[in-house]
């Protein structure tokens, strides 16, 4: 079948007005390109910062929160009030019967992984040099699985801790400051006054100085000794679920299993996430604005085409083209401009992303955290086309309303 007459006319307009078409398409290209680039930048950044969070945060954690003392009030009828200062009344951060809770948590269908952890305040000493930090008593194999610790090991390995009650894995910052390397001995003191000389079996470097300068891993039982607690003491349960981005429903379900505080990573890292959200909103608004400006380009060029072609429109309507036909003609023109513009825009965005991803930022970030994300390409394409369609629709509607009699009368 031969080309439809409306499409034929649209293509002829486009073809005989190449320059205007290119200008309109270029506007869309820049809009779509910038939209894609800025949102990729943003997505890369957000992914980087959530990855940072997941280096030492599980999707959900269960711990005992501080309890505040309740005011003592006497019977209302007496009219007496006892005013006291509310105070933290928590005696111990201990989770009672952690094995049962851990087993219950692990049996939940949406839980992919759950581990127990014992935290303690630690002082790392070598001679007179001392660094304050936190010790984490964990089952290292399970922990490494959950937090990808193996990826960050720069010396030794995580398995070396297994069954080695005197072993310790320390952050690279501690290692540097105390100039201690693998297989060296390090003195660790806890806030409970327990002192142990331990052997460094591994060194990790996550890139986050907060971790690298303070954190260490030991076996759970070692950590329990540091805080003078028995084998049933556990301070936190870390839980990973099927869907990291929507932990809220799982939190609700888990909360039914225990009276301890169940908290998802979003709540624990609300500050980081709100920073991300602010940036996302800003970038989204700016890139959307650029795209809308591109839409105005299409609108302008199509409007001027319509003014120039008003005689053609009148004659088409006189020969029996209806309003819909006229709308189709100009919408097709907008679509052609949109497709060219969007395609070039995606290409432009890709080039920018490729350039950016090759820029070395140094430090823990490494190369700029930006990548090609299919969903963003799809979103940019859809938005580019949508904006073009909207921008094309209004001039097209105007063209459809042209009254041929008015044109012929002049």
């Amino acid at each position, binding site marked *: *079948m*031969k080309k*439809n007459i409306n499409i*034929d006319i649209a293509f*002829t307009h486009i073809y005989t007005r190449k320059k205007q078409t290119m200008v309109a398409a270029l506007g869309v290209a820049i809009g779509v390109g910038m939209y894609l680039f800025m949102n990729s930048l943003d997505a890369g950044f957000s992914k980087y910062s959530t990855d940072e969070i997941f280096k030492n945060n599980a999707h959900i954690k269960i711990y005992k929160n501080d309890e505040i003392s309740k005011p003592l009030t006497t019977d209302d009828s007496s009219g007496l009030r006892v005013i006291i200062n509310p105070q933290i009344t928590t005696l111990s951060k201990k989770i009672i019967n952690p094995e049962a809770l851990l087993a219950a948590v692990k049996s939940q269908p949406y839980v992919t992984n759950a581990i127990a952890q014992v935290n303690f305040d630690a002082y790392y000493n070598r001679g007179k040099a001392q660094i304050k930090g936190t010790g984490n008593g964990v089952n290292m194999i399970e922990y490494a699985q959950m937090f990808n610790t193996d990826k960050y090991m720069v010396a030794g390995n995580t398995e070396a801790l297994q069954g080695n009650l005197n072993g310790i894995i320390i952050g690279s910052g501690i290692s540097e400051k105390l100039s201690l390397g693998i297989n060296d001995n390090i003195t660790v003191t806890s806030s409970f006054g327990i002192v142990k000389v331990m052997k460094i079996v591994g060194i990790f470097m996550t890139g986050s100085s907060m971790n690298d300068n303070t954190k260490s891993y030991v076996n759970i039982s070692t950590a329990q000794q540091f805080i003078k607690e028995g084998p049933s003491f556990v301070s936190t349960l870390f839980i990973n679920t099927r869907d990291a981005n929507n932990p809220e429903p799982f939190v609700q379900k888990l909360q039914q299993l225990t009276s301890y505080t169940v908290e998802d990573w979003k709540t624990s890292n609300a500050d980081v996430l709100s920073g991300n959200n602010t940036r996302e909103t800003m970038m989204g608004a700016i890139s959307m604005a650029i795209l809308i400006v591109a839409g105005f380009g299409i609108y302008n060029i199509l409007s001027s085409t319509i003014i120039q072609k008003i*005689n053609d429109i009148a004659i088409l309507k006189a*020969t*029996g083209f*209806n309003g819909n036909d006229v709308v189709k003609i100009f919408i097709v023109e907008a679509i052609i401009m949109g497709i060219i513009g969007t395609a070039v825009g995606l290409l432009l965005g890709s080039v920018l992303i490729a350039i950016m991803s090759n820029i070395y930022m140094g430090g823990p970030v490494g190369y700029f955290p930006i990548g090609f994300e299919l969903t963003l390409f799809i979103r940019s394409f859809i938005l580019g086309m949508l904006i073009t369609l909207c921008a094309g629709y209004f001039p097209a509607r105007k063209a459809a309303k042209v009254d041929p009699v008015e044109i*012929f009368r002049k």
Partner: protein
Amino acid sequence: MNTLIEKTSIGGLEVVLSTRNLGKYFYDPVKFKALDNVSFDAYEGEFLTLVGKSGSGKSTLLYCLSTMDTVYEGELYIKGEKITGKKPDELAAIRNENIGFVFQFHYLLPEFTCLKNVMIPARRLGKYGYEEIEHKAYEKLKILGLQDQALKPASKLSGGQQQRVAIARALINDPAILMGDEPTGNLDSKNSAVVFDIFKEISSQYGQTIIAVTHDNDFAKASDRTIELADGRIIDQDKKDFE
């Protein structure tokens, strides 16, 4: 003798277009009656001309007949069907199939070749395939003596040639009625004569009705019948009297 009566009695010809008490007002700048109680019938194969002084309402009447102007009083019938009150899309379809237009300023799509210009209404109608339409358009151009110009862009033709292309386009769907608003108004006498001959031929040979507004008395005299307007009223619709 009245042409109208003669035609109905002798040929038994059908009425193709008729108006009943057509009236039209303009409100800008002041209320003004441009058409007043216009009633007439146009017959199959009739070559009808509309004459009258400038401002008498000829164009206004033609736009009402063409179905492009819908704001009027009274009724319009085409091929026995009441046109008044129909929706714009229905009117577009009726125009496409039944009415061909020729204007004083030829109004071709300048980027299209002559052939493609002629094909446009037929492609809109969609009754025939592309090749068939192309063939028909070529035939029409041939009738108008333009076969050599078929593949030239419309903008590259002379005024008289463009007007003939416009006529070919108006004829492509074999419409029942061909309308023209001063179709020869922009042409020299030679080209006017050519256009007149074509009109004469299509009305007599193909039975198509022609309604043409003209200022050219010779053109009007040579037509089958002339309707004369003054101040929006029909003051005469008999050719002999007009003479």
